[in-house]
């Protein structure tokens, strides 16, 4: 088991090993939903919440079900099933008890099911043999990192809304280029901590 302070993992997964900017995971919703600050914030919160939840559940399932039966190779399919079920459950709860939140991110919730960052975090947690606390820190941190990245992106995109972007680059094109620049900028953090 890697012996890293959970707090270090938390900070690292926000800044130096950011899911979007260093692993380029979860790009589809990152590009699609980063047009407005309000919706990005909503989606970012939802991703953070789901990431935390699924990392915990997947950690338990992996260590207490899959390992005892020597079924580690099933983790891909099992993780996907638990993520899908968890998102469904969250959607139901949000729809019932948090109507305002539901109206602002209702249609994005199902999108999270297929957000690769979620599956990515669960798989990295296994590959890097994290302990429970480390895994939770990693899940929360990755979520916050994702939130930070999409918020920054939506801010930039609102700023350049009226800028003369060349026709072929409008929308996703310029977003990808900005993502690349943001990733370069985030390399500046790499001296602080390192987890991989």
């Amino acid at each position, binding site marked *: 088991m890697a012996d890293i302070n959970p707090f270090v993992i938390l900070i690292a997964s926000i800044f130096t090993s950011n899911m979007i900017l260093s692993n380029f995971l979860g790009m589809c919703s990152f590009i699609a939903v980063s047009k407005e600050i309000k919706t990005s914030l909503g989606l970012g919160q939802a991703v953070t919440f789901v990431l935390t939840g699924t990392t915990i559940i997947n950690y338990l*399932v992996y260590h207490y*079900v*899959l390992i005892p*039966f*020597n*079924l580690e190779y*099933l983790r891909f*399919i*099992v993780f996907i*099933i*638990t993520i899908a*079920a968890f998102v*469904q*459950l969250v959607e*139901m*709860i949000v*729809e*019932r008890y948090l*109507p305002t939140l539901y*109206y602002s991110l*209702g*249609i994005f919730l199902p999108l999270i099911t297929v957000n690769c960052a979620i599956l990515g975090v669960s798989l990295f947690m296994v590959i890097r043999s994290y302990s429970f606390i480390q895994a939770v820190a990693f899940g929360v941190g990755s979520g916050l990192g994702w939130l930070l990245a999409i918020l920054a992106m939506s801010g930039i995109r609102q700023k350049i809304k009226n800028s003369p972007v060349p026709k072929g680059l409008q929308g996703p094109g310029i977003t990808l280029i900005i993502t690349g620049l943001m990733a370069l900028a985030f390399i500046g953090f790499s001296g602080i901590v390192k987890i991989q």
Partner: protein
Amino acid sequence: MMTILITVGVISGIATTLALLLTIADVYIANYGEKKIIINDDKELIVEGGSSLLSTLVGNNIFIPSACGGKGSCGYCKCKVNSGAGPVLATELSYLTEEDQRNNVRLSCQIKVKEDMAIEIPEELFNVKQFKGVVEISKDLTDKIKFLRLRITDGQEISFKAGQYLQLTSPPYPGNKDEVYRAYSIASSTKHKDYIDLIIGYVEGGILTTYVHKHLSEGDDVTFNGPYGDFYLQNSDSDMVMVAVGTGMAPIRSILQEMLDKGIERKAVFFFGARSKSDLFMLDEMEMFERELYDFKFIPTLSRPKDEDNWDGFTGRVPDAIADYLEEAPNREAYLCGSAPMIESTVKNLLLKGFTEDKIFYDKFD
């Protein structure tokens, strides 16, 4: 061997646990209790909350038209919701005009009944009824188009305007797990109130067309509801131009029957488009209409006649036939039925021939 069993067991175990959790959540969390829907400030419905407004209303025998069956892809199920629907959802936006949004018009298939609601729907929708019937005649008109006669067996009578449509229900069958309904134009005369005729084409992979073409046979029970639609024969004495392609023949046949039954004396010409000679049908009936009606001409056009067809009529698409054959004249009415691209290019050509947009009526299907 053991490994396989354990694998299967573990996977099924996990899946079952999650499914169970979701089912329990569905029962307890997604349970909204009884809600009240007030229709047109008059009628009051007590319903079980939680499902879409459309399916809730259908469950209470109020049939709002919906060609796509509640998937949010046709935009027909619009309905005025004055309170209780929450903000407009992103899935509705592409179907609601700005005027719709100002007037509280919503897509009833997308909003859920979660609170008490006040809605407005056109009175005529209350005339829409659900009918039970039996397939009396099912025959092939061409290799892709079937003719169905459905006799109503539950004692009700259907009254509709020539040109309107109804919704036919397909029960679940192997390959289709849900009950699904789709819109089809009525092809029979309005004087027959105990049966209706439909003309249904086969679409590869289409749920209802597959049901009709592969599973339904004479003597089978069917359910349908209707009538719907604002495409019907207008009360006027202008000359008429009718245009249809393939199964678009259905409402036109109903209109022609109506003219025959009521002795309407209007000059009419009917352009009918098909691919090759084997795709033409009901030619003897059209001859009959040409003989019996006051002044009616049937002009079939083939877009791709085969060599053996020996086709000496018009070759090309219907809009081209109109551009070639039709003379310019004012004050005519046009009745079009067919696919969206056909309608669009036909309307364009009709406008060049002196038609005005308010006199062009059409029934577009996708």
